[in-house]
C-alpha cells in the first residue's frame, strides 16, 4: 500500500499535469490523453529506475528511453509526428527546477553551488536527450522492417 502510494500517486499527478500542458501546446482530442499517459509512464520508469540504481541521471536516461519508445509507437498509430508526444511526456522529467535553482544561486552569489547545479542540470538534460534519440533511432531502423513496408519515410 505504501509502495502503491509512493509510486502511483505521483504518476497520476504527472498524468494530469501533462494533460494541462498538452492544452497549452494546442494538442487536440485524444492526443492530449496520449501525452498524459506518456508522462505518467515516464515518471513511473524514473521512479523505478531510482529505486534500482539511485541517482537521477541514469533513471532519467532510462525513463527517456521508455518515453521515446512509447511516443514512437503512438506516432505510428496516429500517423503524425512524434515531437508533440515526446516533448509533453518528457515534461515531468525535464530539469526545470535544476536550471531555476542554478540561476538563483548565481543571483545569490553562491558560485560553487551555481556551477555544480548547472553542470548537473546539463547532465540530466543530456541524459534525457540521448536516451530519447537513441531509442528513436533504433526504433526507426527496426520498425519499418518489423512492419514490412508500412510506415517509414517522412513519418516520425
Amino acid at each position, binding site marked *: 500500500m505504501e509502495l502503491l502510494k509512493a509510486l502511483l500517486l505521483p504518476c497520476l*499527478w504527472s498524468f494530469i499535469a501533462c494533460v494541462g500542458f498538452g492544452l497549452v501546446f494546442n*494538442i487536440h482530442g485524444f492526443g492530449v490523453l496520449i501525452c498524459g499517459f506518456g508522462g505518467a509512464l515516464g515518471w513511473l520508469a524514473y521512479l523505478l529506475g531510482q529505486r534500482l540504481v539511485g541517482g537521477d541521471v541514469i533513471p532519467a536516461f532510462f525513463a527517456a528511453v521508455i518515453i521515446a519508445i512509447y511516443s514512437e509507437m503512438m506516432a505510428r498509430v496516429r500517423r503524425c509526428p512524434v515531437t508533440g508526444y515526446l*516533448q509533453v511526456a518528457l515534461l515531468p522529467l525535464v530539469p526545470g527546477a535544476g536550471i531555476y535553482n542554478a540561476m538563483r544561486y548565481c543571483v545569490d552569489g553562491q558560485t560553487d553551488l551555481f556551477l555544480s547545479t548547472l553542470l548537473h542540470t546539463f547532465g540530466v538534460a543530456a541524459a534525457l536527450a540521448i536516451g530519447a534519440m537513441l531509442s528513436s533511432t533504433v526504433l526507426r531502423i527496426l520498425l519499418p522492417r518489423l512492419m514490412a513496408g508500412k510506415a517509414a519515410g517522412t513519418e516520425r
Partner: protein
Amino acid sequence: MEPNYDDLLNMGTELGYQLMYSGAEIYRVEESVNRLLTAYGLQPQVFAIPNCLIVSLNTPSGHPITSMRRIPSHGTDIELLEACNDLCRRLCREVPPLEQAKERVRRLGEGHRAHPTWVLLMGYVVAAAFFAAFFGGNLRDMLSAGLCGLGVGLWILYLSKPLRVVGFFQTLIAAAIASLLALLLTDLRLGVNLNYITIGTLMVLVPGMALTNAMREIVNGDIISGINRTAEAILTAAAISLGVILSLAMGT
C-alpha cells in the same frame, strides 16, 4: 512547360516558415523543405537555425535563387506542426500542379484549429496545480498553485500582448507574479509549503524543455541551433530567478 522557380522557392520557404513557427525541430524543417522541393525535381540547399531559414536552389539553366525568412519568437503549436507535416507528406506523394500546391500551403494557417483562450488558461491552472502536487504539495498547496497559475496565465495570455512585453521581461514579470501570489496565499494561510507552490507554478515557465531540446539538437549535429537554444534557456532561467527575487524582496 518550364515551372516557375520563384513560386516553387516561395512555396518551399513558406512551408518551412510555418513548420519553424509551430516549434518543429531544425532537422524536421530542413528535411521537409528539402523533400518537398526535391519532389518537384530540384536540388535545394536548406539551412535553418532557430530564428532564420535560408533556402537556395539552382534553376536548370544554372541561375541561383535564394530566399531567406526570419522567424519571429514563437511558442509550440503541435496542431499546426501536424498539419504542416501532413501537408508536406501529401505534396511529396502526389506532386500536384504548382498552383494547387501553392494554394494548399497558403491555406495552412486558415483551417487551423486552436483552443479558445480560456482552455489555454485552464491548461496553465491545471499544470501549475498538479505540478505542485507532483512535487509533494498537499491539497491546499494545489489550490494555491492553481490560483498562481491563473495569475501567470492571465498575464501571458491576456495582458502581455497588448502591452507588448515579450521575451525576457515577459518571463521576468510572469515569475514575479507567480512568486508574489504564492507569498500572498501562504500569508493568507491558504497555501502551506511556499516552495512547492512556487516551483509548481514556475514549471509552466522554466526552460527545462528548451534545454532538453537544445541537447537534442546538439546530439543531432545541429550545433549552432543547440548552442543558440542553450543560451536562450539560460537567459530564461535568469529572467525567472530575477523575477522571483524581485518579488521576494518586495514581499519581505
